């Protein structure tokens, strides 16, 4: 799978080789493997785990989507407009979340990059703090803030800023706020990592050559962070496509994402076949975007943020 993206290795991904004296065109040498064949046995528990708990259910689902009762399960996307619309909603939500996460994460990562080590540590902690609390708790906390009688609306009403409560949740806005919050770390860290790899002499060099701060940023700093931006965006986008808890609690039931429709089919309608079909469509959608992403950056870089 790591070979996928080698087709189009953008110049930006070569950034890491800036100081290498050998030709960068050559593929990275194979990493040295530790010890003898004995070490290879250690990979088996993971393989067995994946095979039993991931691959097997996946094939079951795929099979079920065309046999329970038949391939007509997929027709639901044509026959019922709810499902086609949900496809659009899912895509749109993922896009909004990705863009808003990017707009927040880039300046934040830049702040981390420019901070002293101690301050950078504090900022890192603030980003990963959401990981320390349960997603469910976090999402309910957002409802406390966003609902009609929530903290924000009450405050605005008391202050006389508004006459009627603002619709802050049960819509795309609420979903976007909640999801952006919990997916932010996946955007911040790849971008921060790509900034850290930029030689600190490059911007002063551009300045000495006559570039203003803004021009140097646009022509040197920004392009060199592109791998991080693309990795982060791809991760956030792909993760958004399958999000369930946050859209279920903060979103509108009339405009559900695919994940919510799956739950509905399986739990309410007990239509495992249709639920499976939607799941497979969602997976296919995810793979398409991953593939498109790998046309721009290497798969390895998406996973590791570029190194």
């Amino acid at each position, binding site marked *: 799978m790591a070979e996928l993206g080698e087709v189009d290795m953008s*110049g*930006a991904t*070569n*950034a890491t*080789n*800036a*100081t*290498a*004296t050998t*030709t*960068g*065109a050559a593929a990275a040498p194979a990493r040295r493997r530790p010890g003898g064949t004995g070490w290879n046995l250690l990979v088996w528990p993971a393989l067995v785990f994946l095979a039993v708990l991931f691959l097997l259910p996946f094939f079951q689902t795929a099979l079920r989507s065309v046999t329970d009762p038949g391939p007509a399960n997929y027709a639901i996307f044509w026959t019922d407009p709810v499902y086609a619309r949900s496809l659009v909603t899912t895509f749109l939500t993922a896009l909004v979340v990705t863009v808003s996460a990017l707009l927040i994460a880039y300046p934040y990562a830049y702040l981390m990059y420019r901070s002293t080590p101690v301050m950078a540590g504090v900022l890192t902690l603030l980003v990963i703090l959401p990981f320390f609390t349960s997603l469910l708790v976090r999402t309910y906390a957002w409802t406390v803030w966003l609902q009609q009688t929530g903290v924000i609306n009450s405050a605005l009403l008391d202050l006389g800023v508004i006459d009627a409560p603002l619709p802050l949740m049960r819509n795309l806005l609420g979903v976007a706020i909640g999801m952006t919050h919990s997916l932010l770390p996946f955007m911040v860290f790849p971008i921060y990592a790509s900034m850290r790899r930029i*030689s600190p*002499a*490059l911007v*002063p*060099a*551009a*300045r*000495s*050559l*006559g*570039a*203003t*701060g803004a*021009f*140097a940023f646009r*022509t*040197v700093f920004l*392009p*060199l962070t592109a791998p991080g931006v693309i990795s982060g965006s791809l991760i956030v986008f792909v993760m958004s496509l399958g999000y369930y808890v946050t859209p279920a609690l903060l979103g509108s039931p009339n405009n559900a994402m695919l994940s919510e429709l799956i739950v509905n089919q399986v739990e309410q309608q007990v239509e495992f076949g249709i639920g499976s079909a939607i799941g497979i469509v969602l997976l296919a959608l995810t793979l398409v975007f991953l593939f498109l992403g790998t046309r721009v950056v290497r798969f390895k870089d998406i996973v590791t943020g570029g190194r």
Partner: protein
Amino acid sequence: MTEKTLGGELSLTDVRRSYGGQRGVDSVSLDVRSGEFLTMLGPSGSGKTTTLNLIAGFLDTDSGSITLDGRELAGIPAHRRELGVVFQQYALFPHMTAAQNIAYPLRVRGVKGAEQRRLVAEALDLVHLAEYGDRTPAQLSGGQQQRVALARAIVFRPRLLLMDEPLGALDKKLREAMQIEITRICRELGATVIYVTHDQEEALAMSDRIAIYNAGRIEQLGTAEELYERPASLFVADFVGESTVLHGTYSAGALAFGGARLTAAAAGTAPADGTAAALVLRPENVAVYPASAEGDVPEGHNRVRATVEEWIYLGVAKKCLLACSDGTVVTARTATTVDEGPLGPGAEAVVAWDPEKSVVVPDHRETAAANQ
């Protein structure tokens, strides 16, 4: 190609910059002539790179003035100073080809199209990389990246070229080749160059003049020859070339060392009578005689008794280490043909030298210790 020359005149007057730590600059004054290759040499943390950053505008001075062609640079931001800077790690933009890197300062200045291509081609030609314009930095060797960095720094005809340890990342052989290359290019362009290095051989080989930095100050400014032959302080003597230092007390024009009175040319100001002083001796100016042959020492030469400790074969020469009665080690460099026979380890010997070939300097180290 020479519409505008790179031969700016730079002047630093009483420039100060404190840095909290030791890397500051304390009252540096310096005049660099048009077309001059001036090297700032000193140990790390002595203020040479700080001085360079002050000139380039990456740092602000606390006080003092820096002028280029008579124009005060204070208050002018780095991007409007018109100075070419070559950085230690080249600082090439990894996402651009060599040609795009070189075109960058032209792009900033709105030079486009055919004119830009012509200037880039000329610059690539000058550094002998005409065929390499399309390569990215990662596809170039260290030496080639270095040349691209140099081409990028001169393509927009800055008034001055600043280089911060540009050869630090290269191996010794390549470094020597690049020293010759850089000097050639700078001569060809008539460029005024400020070059920072901690490598004294590099400084001696390339520079018109050298400023020796120590603890934020210029300890001595002069040609390579002046610094080597007439070091003004113990620090300079120690830093530039190999030397033997004899510590003693100065009075009536001579240094009392052991039982001997040693005369020498004084560099700059002679030490005051009765103060601690040091005599600096270059190994190649020291002759070694067996104690029995003391009569062979030419009239008027300084002489000190010592015991041979060891001979070291260097290929082009031999080195003899001798210990004086107080433990001071004297190094002598001789031709490989010299007969070690009567001068084996342990042999009593006399080291002698022409007083004109040695220098006496004030021994600040000892006075500083005495004052405490």
